[in-house]
């Protein structure tokens, strides 16, 4: 579903990604962890071309591209197949939840409005927001907003979902509802690539964990291996910051 070969990206002199290679099968959940500024988000944004890369090759849902610009039609297909959820939700504040979800299907893809709306209602039911369909984003809590944003991305019927720290902007008590939606999605078999600091989620849901450090994958493996038997000093040091959290919540 996703294959990345030697992906490199610099912002000016600063090398953010220094050669990332990874593979992800259909239906797999891959979680990317690592200290902030290690390039996790940039990596994700390169996959749907919100960011251009400097070199390397990427294949996402059957679309292969490299540093050369792709044509608009290819980019359009890529973004339809790879949905994205942002840290800051990025809901459109001038539109209701329903309009947020149906904007791209109706005006971008020319889908009939009633069909887009009935699918939107199904998705809203799934994320538990059906009764909020006609609310504006500013009338929703952060957790509700992020659930609406997930529904919006799902409305494009993507083959893979990219999550960019979906709970980092939320108060701790609101994170659970978003993680619950993500868990449901994973159980339905959605292919998900998740950048997160939610170690409990990673431990419980990931098929594979990538530990990013300084633009490289410093360590990767099954969650038990990374969380319990890591041989990498940087990984252990990074995870030690979360140890306290685990004990308190008792893991998941």
């Amino acid at each position: 579903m996703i294959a990345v070969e030697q992906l490199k990206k610099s912002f000016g002199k600063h090398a953010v990604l220094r050669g990332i290679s990874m593979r992800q099968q259909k239906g797999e959940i891959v979680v990317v962890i690592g200290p902030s500024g290690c390039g996790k988000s940039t990596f994700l944004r390169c996959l749907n071309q919100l960011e251009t890369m400097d070199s390397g090759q990427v294949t996402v849902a059957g679309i292969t591209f490299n540093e050369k610009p792709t044509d608009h039609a290819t980019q359009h297909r890529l973004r339809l197949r790879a949905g994205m959820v942002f840290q800051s939700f990025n809901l459109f504040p001038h539109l209701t939840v329903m309009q947020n979800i149906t904007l791209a299907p109706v005006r971008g893809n020319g889908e009939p409005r009633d069909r887009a709306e009935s699918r939107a209602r199904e998705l809203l039911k799934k994320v538990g927001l059906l009764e909020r369909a006609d609310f504006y984003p500013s009338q929703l809590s952060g957790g509700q907003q992020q659930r609406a944003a997930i529904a919006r991305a799902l409305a494009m019927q993507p083959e893979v979902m990219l999550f960019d720290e979906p709970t980092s902007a939320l108060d701790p008590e609101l994170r659970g509802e978003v993680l619950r939606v993500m868990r449901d999605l994973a159980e339905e078999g959605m292919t998900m690539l998740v950048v997160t600091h939610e170690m409990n989620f990673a431990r419980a849901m990931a098929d594979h964990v990538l530990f990013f450090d300084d633009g490289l994958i410093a360590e990767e493996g099954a969650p038990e291996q990374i969380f319990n038997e890591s041989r990498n000093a940087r990984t252990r040091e990074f995870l030690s910051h979360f140890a306290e959290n685990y004990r308190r919540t008792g893991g998941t």
Partner: protein
Amino acid sequence: MKIRFVGGAAIFLAAFAVLFSARADDALQRIQKSGVLKWGADAEGGAPYVFPDPQQPEKLIGFEVEIADALAHKFGARAEMVQNQWDGLVPALQRGNFDIVLNGLEITEEHRRQIAMSQPYYVYSQQIITRKDNVALTNLASLKGHAVGTLSGTVAQRIMEKAGGVDVRVYPGQVEPFRDLNNGRIDAVMLDRPIAVYYLTKEPNLKMSGDPFAPGYYGIGVRKEDQTLLLALNQGIAELLADGTLEKIYRKWNLWDKNQLLLVNYHEEQPTAQKNAPVSTFRNWRTYLPMLLKGALVTVEISVLAMALAIACGLALALTRLHGIAPLRWLAVAYIEVIRGTPLLIQLYLIYYGLPNVGIRLNAFVAAVLGLGLNYAAYEAENYRAGIQAIPRGQMEAALSLGMNRWLSLRAVVLPQAIRIVIPPVTNDFIALFKDSSLVSVITMVELTKVYGMLALTTYDYMGLGLMTAALYFGLSYPVSLLAKRLERKLHRDRR
């Protein structure tokens, strides 16, 4: 014989004047004490009356400069010209900006109501000027149905308006009507003969058409209370006439004609006492308000069309500046900077008087809308740019990540949010444009401010008319503010 009599009378009057001036510190005494006679005139396009010497632009020349020098010499003073817009010479005199007005001021009832007028120093007449190939327009009657240019606030304007049926185009300066005659925007120019005499030496394709007509007198304007100065001026004029100085000056400027003999026989008609009272335009609002409203309608038409143009062009400029390809982006930036960095007035002149040089001849209305609209487009572009940039990047990214293309993302996501932000500054600009529209009177548009100026010039009721005009402007712009406020509220319905 007669000249000598006038001279004798003048000497007598002068003696009287000296006696009188000894008792009060009046204008004449002040002039003699300070050694400076301040005379108000408009040197902008003022040939051949008073204008900058083409060879030596810091020096003023003209037949009135020479008359002022000769008169000042008689008072033992030197003449100092004070520049003032011609339209505003009389009020400026009343305010005390200078001692006299010596600038082709016609001796008319209206002027006499406001100020004292001296003996005439020149007999002017009206002259029609056409292109060389025109043989039809030789007198006032033949002008009917034609576009005829003249100067704002002149007797010529009033003669044509009284005659009716003439499409009178009013210009602020003397050069512009000849330009428009040359390029065919108008069919004839009618104005005081001295102007025609001077400018025709520079316009090979134009000619004087028909004989001069409707003679009248130029006199010197003095404040009503400065009676001794008035007497001294009358004496001075009489002496300059008697010793041939005036004739010499006029011959030098090619302005001497047999009409000037009328100067000698001039008898002042005293204004009647009841006409002395200034016209109250307030009391006669039924007459004046409809005229102002007609001007206001033109103002509204120009402003609304210009703003629509500014909004459309401004949006295109802002989007080009933010999302356009490189050369177009630079062009947009250059346009915005150049337009913002140059005066609107110059831009209007260029569009109206400059473009005909390259074969583009726009009528005044189109030029006014284009000039204002393209000018404000630069300001609107910056408003929109600020508004668009105020929308977080994540909005665009979210739209793109949903597979929407850049243009649809802009249209459906970024712009609707940006519009809410820019409503207050755009409203502000619309109201500013509404008032700036008064500038288009320089390209012959008769809008609200111009109507005010013309009415004030004939009635001298600057106060009453000014209040009415200001009320009209406010009455038209305030609803725009209210409308904008409502729109803003409506668009913010999702904000709690």
